[in-house]
């Protein structure tokens, strides 16, 4: 089976989640990668380490803005050129918005939020998350073209030294493809992006106020972690909205999620229950988070967190 994998870069570096998509694709078939915008050839060639044979690169810098329609058109064009039957992408704010449009353009079935490799022993069946992390479903996809978006940590990365050949792909965009115009971008620079992070330190209303977040940031810096928060914290503007995790916020799947002063309401857990290991720090021994956590500390965050920082530094 021939597979096309769409990859994204952040600050010129191919995202780890995109490399996971390449590795996923290479377990399904022969992989061609499609990439867009300004990105170094050396960085592109590296996708070969994860099983890709070829990269189709559209260097049109209008694509640096991550325009939904134009990105969908590029991917559809790359499907045509590569003859791919299956398109694989790793979930992201752009991919989530693009996948449906690609599916219609190429006449494919589309399944999002895929959590495992497909079972092809009898058709094509994938496992996906449903009911906001409270269950999984096995979905059979009809014969023909397919688009699937995969979540983080679905495959293990085992790089080789192979490199991929790079070809330029040009696409005849028209004005309608850029009908959604970016007029401003507000992005935290230099930080570890929350959806990509392997380690996350998150805090809730137990922190009492935004002035107490320095401690949480210190813990995150010590670990090299991203910071996150519960919904009331972003509702009260203690922290920006893009840090809020949960059912109505970002869904994360890090190796380690440390929750400080968060009760562990079901809506919060919905965004974090795919984490590999959860540590809950809460002064209330009855806090529901202890039922979802692997490790728990009952204590006052204002005393526990500084001690934890010291212990990590040792």
């Amino acid at each position, binding site marked *: 089976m021939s597979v096309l994998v769409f990859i994204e870069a952040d600050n010129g570096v191919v995202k780890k989640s995109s490399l996971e998509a390449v590795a996923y694709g290479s377990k399904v078939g022969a992989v061609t990668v499609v990439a867009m915008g300004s990105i170094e050839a050396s960085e592109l060639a590296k996708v070969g380490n994860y099983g890709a044979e070829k990269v189709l690169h559209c260097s049109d810098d209008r694509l640096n803005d991550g325009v939904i329609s134009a990105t969908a058109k590029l991917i559809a064009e790359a499907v045509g050129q590569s003859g791919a039957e299956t398109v694989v992408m790793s979930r992201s704010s752009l991919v989530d918005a693009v996948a449906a449009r690609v599916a219609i353009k190429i006449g494919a079935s589309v399944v999002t939020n895929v959590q495992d490799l497909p079972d092809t022993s009898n058709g094509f069946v994938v496992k996906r998350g449903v*009911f906001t992390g409270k269950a999984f479903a096995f979905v059979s996809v009809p014969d023909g073209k397919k688009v699937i978006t995969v979540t983080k940590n679905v495959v293990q990365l085992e790089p080789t030294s192979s490199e991929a050949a790079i070809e330029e792909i040009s696409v005849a965009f028209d004005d309608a493809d850029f*009908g959604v115009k970016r007029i*401003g971008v507000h992005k935290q620079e230099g930080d570890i992006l929350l959806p990509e992070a392997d380690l996350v330190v998150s805090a809730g209303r137990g922190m009492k106020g935004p002035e107490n977040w320095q401690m949480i940031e210190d813990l995150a810096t010590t670990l090299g972690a991203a910071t996150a928060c519960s919904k009331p914290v972003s509702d009260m503007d203690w922290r920006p909205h893009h840090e809020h995790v949960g059912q109505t916020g970002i869904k994360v799947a890090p190796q380690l999620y440390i929750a400080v002063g968060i009760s562990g309401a079901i809506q919060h857990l919905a965004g974090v229950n795919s984490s590999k290991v959860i540590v809950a720090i809460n002064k209330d021994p009855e806090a529901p988070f202890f*039922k979802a956590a692997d490790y728990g500390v009952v204590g006052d965050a204002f005393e526990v967190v500084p001690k934890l920082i010291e212990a990590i530094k040792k």
Partner: protein
Amino acid sequence: MKILVCISHVPDTTTKIKFVDNKLDTNGVQFIIGPYDDFALARAVELKEASGGTVTVLNVGTVDTEPSIRKALAIGADNAVRVDAEPTDSLFVAKQIVAHAASENYDMILMGRESSDFNSGLVHGLVGELLGWPSIAPAMKLDVDGSTAKLSREIEGGHEDVEVQLPFVAGCQEPIAEWKIPNMRGIMMARKKPLEVVEAVAVEGVTAYQSFELPEEKGECKMVDADQMDELVGLLKNEARVL
């Protein structure tokens, strides 16, 4: 302004999910308007209140979903359409919306970024592509000035502001508007508002939900004394191997 808001009818957020015969066990489950759809509806009603027009709500569902549709009418939608079918997948739902919207000249179609039952997050993009309209998701802000709309879309680590000409489709999330709670007057008025029931169009090539599985039960949470943070770090390094 003529706005279509598409709503899903989903189990209440706190529902314990169980399955019987490979379907959701709806016994004792309370159903609500999809939480993200509620944000879309609230913003649509605000836009109508500010500059006139109509808000139509559409749901693809069996007669069981009518309480959710009535609630949307009570919140401020003017009329409603129910496409009489059990939704099978996102493509099925999108094609029903398109079949309705194709002849209605809407200025925008709003819905939640995803439904909180199947969480596919596809319907806005499918509808946009099928109608040849731009689609924007997840939309956190929406203002309209004449034929131009300004939206803010969540991206990793922040958000971007975009501008688009009407018509367009948006998949919404907070903080686009405050959820609205129907008042008594709204509830009384909703009873008299038109709710049209239409037949579904046939859709080919849908995916099939074969079976469901619940996540593995979590093991016991290992408690560490608040004075023993060295021990916690040791466990994270050597036992959990995440540091």
